[in-house]
């Protein structure tokens, strides 16, 4: 049953990835892409705008979904996400500061804005992690409250930085804070790919540890999981991944919360299956939402965040009220 569900998801992913680049303000026919030369405008839109955008959307959605799944398991709380724990806003603050200060540097090919976002994400997670360390046995609720507090603090910082910026910087920051997936050429998706592979491998490889941690810290330790070590590994891996996504696409919060829950309802709580499912579904979900944002109000484009929330919110409520709804609350 579970292998079948996952196989179905893989097929759906391939279909969506192939079809999505053809969807948009100007619809592109498959013949023109294959037959026409490199100078054909349709072909150029397809290869330098649409395909990179779909790739970016998939990587961003997959990353946020996986990060949400990992945080929900580690904190045993359905509301734990990169967003609610303050990790997204930490990353956003790092990136905002980078833009505001007009910095421009890169280390080993990783752009400065990604590094700044990663540093911000790591700072946020360190605050929450420090709380776990200093107060052993504090409830997951306390940690979420800490995350919310971190979130507010960093958001205010972002507003402050934003307010003191000049017009050009202000526009750059605002445009980016709204969340974006439009990109030109393969550079941005390609820069995100290694970060996503790093975080994704950690999340998928540690499926047994995540299972045990999602049952409870005491039980996990008793079964032989070195919880404090794996917690550090996962926090670091998730910060890298979230930092990368937020640096390029802005704080996209919604996918990380909903996608893992929806997957859990479909394929169950075992992270061996839940991991790949969340990865694929999160990616596909964001790509579909983005494709819809391109056509629904054409020739204008809606912000992708609007679509994800409009689609995901009611769908999630419907799942909650369904017969399997009870397992959502307990499902983390």
């Amino acid at each position, binding site marked *: 049953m579970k292998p079948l569900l996952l196989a179905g998801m893989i097929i759906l992913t391939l279909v969506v990835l192939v079809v999505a680049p053809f969807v948009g303000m100007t619809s592109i026919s498959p013949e023109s892409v294959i037959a026409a030369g490199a100078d054909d405008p349709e072909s150029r839109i397809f290869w330098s705008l649409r395909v990179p955008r779909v790739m970016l959307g998939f990587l961003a959605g997959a990353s946020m979904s996986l990060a949400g799944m990992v945080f929900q398991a580690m904190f045993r709380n359905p509301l734990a996400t990169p967003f609610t724990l303050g990790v997204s806003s930490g990353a956003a603050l790092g990136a905002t500061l980078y833009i505001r200060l007009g910095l421009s540097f890169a280390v080993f090919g990783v752009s400065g804005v990604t590094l700044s976002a990663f540093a911000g994400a790591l700072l946020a997670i360190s605050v929450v992690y420090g709380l776990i360390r200093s107060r052993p046995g504090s409830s997951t609720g306390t940690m979420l409250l800490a995350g919310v507090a971190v979130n507010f603090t960093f958001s205010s910082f972002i507003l402050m930085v934003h307010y003191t910026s000049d017009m050009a910087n202000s526009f750059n920051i605002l445009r980016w804070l709204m969340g974006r997936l439009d990109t030109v050429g393969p550079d941005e998706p390609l820069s995100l790919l290694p970060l996503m592979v790093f975080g994704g491998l950690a999340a998928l490889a540690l499926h047994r540890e995540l299972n045990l941690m999602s049952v*409870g810290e005491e039980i996990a*330790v008793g*079964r*032989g999981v*070195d919880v404090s070590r794996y917690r550090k590994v996962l926090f670091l891996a998730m910060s890298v991944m979230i930092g990368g996504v937020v640096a390029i696409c802005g704080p996209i919060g919604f996918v990380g919360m909903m996608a893992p829950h929806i997957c859990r309802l479909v394929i*169950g*709580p075992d992270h061996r299956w839940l991991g790949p499912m969340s990865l694929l579904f999160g990616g596909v979900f964001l790509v579909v939402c983005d494709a819809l944002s391109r056509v629904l109000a054409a020739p204008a484009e809606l912000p992708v965040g609007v679509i994800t929330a409009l689609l995901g919110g009611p769908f999630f409520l419907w799942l909650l009220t369904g017969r399997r709804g009870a397992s959502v609350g*307990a*499902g983390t």
Partner: protein
Amino acid sequence: MTSTQMMTMAVDVRHLRLDLQGWPILRDVSFAVREGEYLAVVGPNGAGKTSLLRCINRVARGWRGAVNINGVSIAAFTQRELARHVAYVPQAGGRHSPFTVRETILMARYPHLTPFVSVNYRDLRFVEDALALTGTGSLADRAMHTLSGGERQKVMLAAALAQNARILLLDEPTTFLDPRHRDVFRRVLRTINREKGITVIEVTHDLNCAALDSHRILALRNGEIAFCGPPGQFMDNEVLSRLYERSFLFTEHPVTGQPMILPEEGDRI
């Protein structure tokens, strides 16, 4: 004790001290448990019983002293290695687990797996054996959070058995069980202790059951050992009144003849 110290102890605790946020929880606790022994740990609430178990399997950190498992300091084990020697049934665990009973028990095979060794028929056999021994086979496909407290507790025991450790730590495993579930649970514990030679350390408030099931009773009070000896010496008004600051009524068990504690008489209505 000198003769027993010569042989290797399953669990050997020396000068264990634990402080939590500046408060002493355990102060200089020393005792040893033989392989195959059943030790009951009793004492008033807040005496440090749970903390003691948590130190032995390294759930709690930051203690001082020495804890040896089969003659080796637990500091020398990785958590995974330690879990192959020591299994732990926490207080009322698994309440919010979304996993099924079978998944829960299979997850206990974790210390025997590596990233490159996946679940094989041997692991599955441990799961089926544990289900059979605890009588939880009929629950195998139910989700943990749909079980009653008693059923869940038996599954947590089954999981600890599937972990296949020679030392079993239990924290008040029968507190929330009805008389039938409690006695089934006790029977399983006695079976694995007497027939398989598993070393059992059980924290409990049920003094009568402790006296019936264990080889030795360790009583903690304010983080110190107040008594350590056979059940026959423990079931004594002087020992018990010093431990709990009240006096007890005793009677004889009609079958075994051991002294049993009676509850205080209520007001006649």
